[in-house]
């Protein structure tokens, strides 16, 4: 028992330290290279900082790299944890944050916003709202006689998802190939470029609230992955916990997609990595997914913006780096337990 607690705290501290270190290093990498010492001095309040920092460095850190790294951590942690929650909710290891069509719905909203020539704030809010509306629609469709079975929810999620997918394709088909189409295509592949503190302020509260809800419910998620009657017989209010999980995951996914576009893979990959490392107890899976998701995303985004002269779309990198990594882990551990 004591051994377990010790092991747990070592992991928690290890992941937290790695996350902070990754973020600090990531902020130094880029066309304008900055040392870790300079970064720390910039981030510390004026009184404590050991040396004077160049004004250029300050601008690069505060206006460009810090918000971007923070967003990467939030997005990665958020997508991973909502993937983990959905896997338990649907008791299906293949579930992803987009199982109910939130991401597709949000993409539809964003594409429409781009077509209508909205500014970035308009596109973001539009994407968020359509993402949430999409889940509400799924839930509404799945209700038969006041009850919605999990199977109905998944099926209506798939239907709605493919419907909005088709709408996005339609927009792409009619979009102006000179400027609108590339913008849509680039957005759909995911990118964190051009994110400032204003955007963070808008989207991050939802991500944080969603994460907190799932974190608080983490132990109850274990019961959701049992058969429904079994879960009820344990004295769990299955309906309420399901609702809360769906709302929390939808909030996270919709705001991540609205801020950074469609990012694939993380919501499936990271929860499974956590399962291979820590077993299936959501008490560990939830915090592990947040931490590992954040680390993974910060690394991916750093590669995306600094590997080549032009930005590489995130979804391409998550798949190209994620797939081999996942395959190696699968072969090594023999899959989840």
């Amino acid at each position, binding site marked *: *028992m004591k051994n377990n607690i010790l092991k747990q705290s070592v992991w928690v501290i290890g992941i937290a330290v790695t996350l902070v270190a990754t973020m600090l290093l990531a902020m130094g990498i880029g066309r304008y290279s900055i040392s870790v010492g300079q970064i720390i001095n910039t981030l510390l309040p004026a009184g404590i900082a050991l040396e004077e920092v160049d004004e250029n460095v300050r601008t690069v850190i505060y206006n460009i790299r810090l918000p971007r790294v923070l967003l990467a951590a939030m997005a990665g942690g958020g997508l991973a944890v909502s993937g983990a929650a959905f*896997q*338990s909710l649907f*008791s*299906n*290891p293949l579930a992803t944050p987009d199982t109910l069509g939130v991401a597709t719905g949000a993409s539809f909203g964003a594409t429409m916003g781009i077509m209508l020539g909205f500014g970035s704030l308009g596109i973001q809010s539009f994407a968020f709202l359509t993402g949430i509306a999409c889940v509400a629609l799924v839930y509404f469709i799945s209700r038969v006689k006041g009850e919605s079975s999990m199977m109905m929810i998944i099926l209506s999620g798939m239907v709605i998802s493919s419907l909005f997918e088709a709408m996005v394709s339609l927009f792409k088909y009619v979009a102006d190939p000179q400027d609108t189409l590339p913008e849509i295509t680039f957005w759909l592949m995911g990118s964190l470029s051009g994110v400032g503190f204003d955007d963070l302020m808008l989207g991050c509260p939802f991500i944080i609230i969603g994460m907190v809800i799932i974190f*608080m*419910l*983490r*132990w*109850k998620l*274990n*019961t959701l*992955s*049992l*058969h429904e*009657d*079994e879960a*009820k*017989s*344990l*004295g*769990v*209010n299955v309906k*309420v*916990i399901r609702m809360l999980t769906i709302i929390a995951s939808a909030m996270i996914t919709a705001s991540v997609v609205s801020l950074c576009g469609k990012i694939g893979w993380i919501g499936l990959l990271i929860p499974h990595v956590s*399962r291979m490392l820590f*077993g*299936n*107890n959501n*008490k560990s899976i939830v915090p592990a997914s947040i931490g590992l998701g954040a680390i993974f995303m910060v690394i991916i985004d750093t590669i995306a913006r600094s590997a080549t002269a032009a930005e590489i779309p995130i979804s391409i990198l998550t798949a190209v780096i994620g797939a081999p990594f996942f395959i190696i882990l699968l072969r090594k551990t023999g899959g*989840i*337990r």
Partner: protein
Amino acid sequence: MKFEVVDGCFGYANGKNILNHINCCVEEKEILSILGSNGVGKTTLLKCTLGLLKWRSGMTQIDGKNVQEMKHSELWRNIGYVPQAKLSAFAYTVDEMVLLGRNSHLGMLEQPGKKDKEIASKCIDRIGIGYLKGKLCSKISGGELQMVLIARALAAEPKLMILDEPESNLDFKNQLIVLETIKSLRDEEGISSIVNTHYPEHAISISDKALILNRDGSSVFGAAHSSIIEENLEKAFGVNVKIQDFYHREKKYTCVLPLSIASGN
């Protein structure tokens, strides 16, 4: 605690009633066995009595109080349900699984604490599967998993346990282990049980009362020894049956032997 089904009727969707005017009750320190052929509605009956399915008419009462009007957590603190052993999509360890039984004692956002872990651990030891601690539920045998589920139900500290065919799919030894556990929980902890079973012999050996469901929707309820008789079994299962007592080292055993399929069935 008195657990009672009063005039319960149930049928799925728009179909006709499959359970008709069911009446039965379990008092403290009693075991009730439910017998009936495949598809007659034994599991359905359990789900109805627990409120997982709604009676068309009639109700389930605990100490005279309608179960439907009780708070979710209050009900499940008194009753432990042991479903047929099936694995879930994600395998948890035995300790984690049993700890889930503490749910009804914890609030929505509460995490299990030290006390809950102790109770779970005690329940595991109580039914003699301490050697399974730390193992994954997917890596243990069917009989062991059934015991884990019993321990999980026990962790809620219930007054009544409801078990759905706990000994089917198990070998002789595991069947006896499960049955002995149910019996000793009654004798030592005063926990009553309602048990669905396919084996009239098991029903006779452990239960005080029996409810036999017939295929025409009628039912027989009474003391185990007076209701589990050849005539009733023939009617319920459509099989000619011989019930024979015999003594071995001065202990009485009852043997139920199906002879042949009854004519007219």
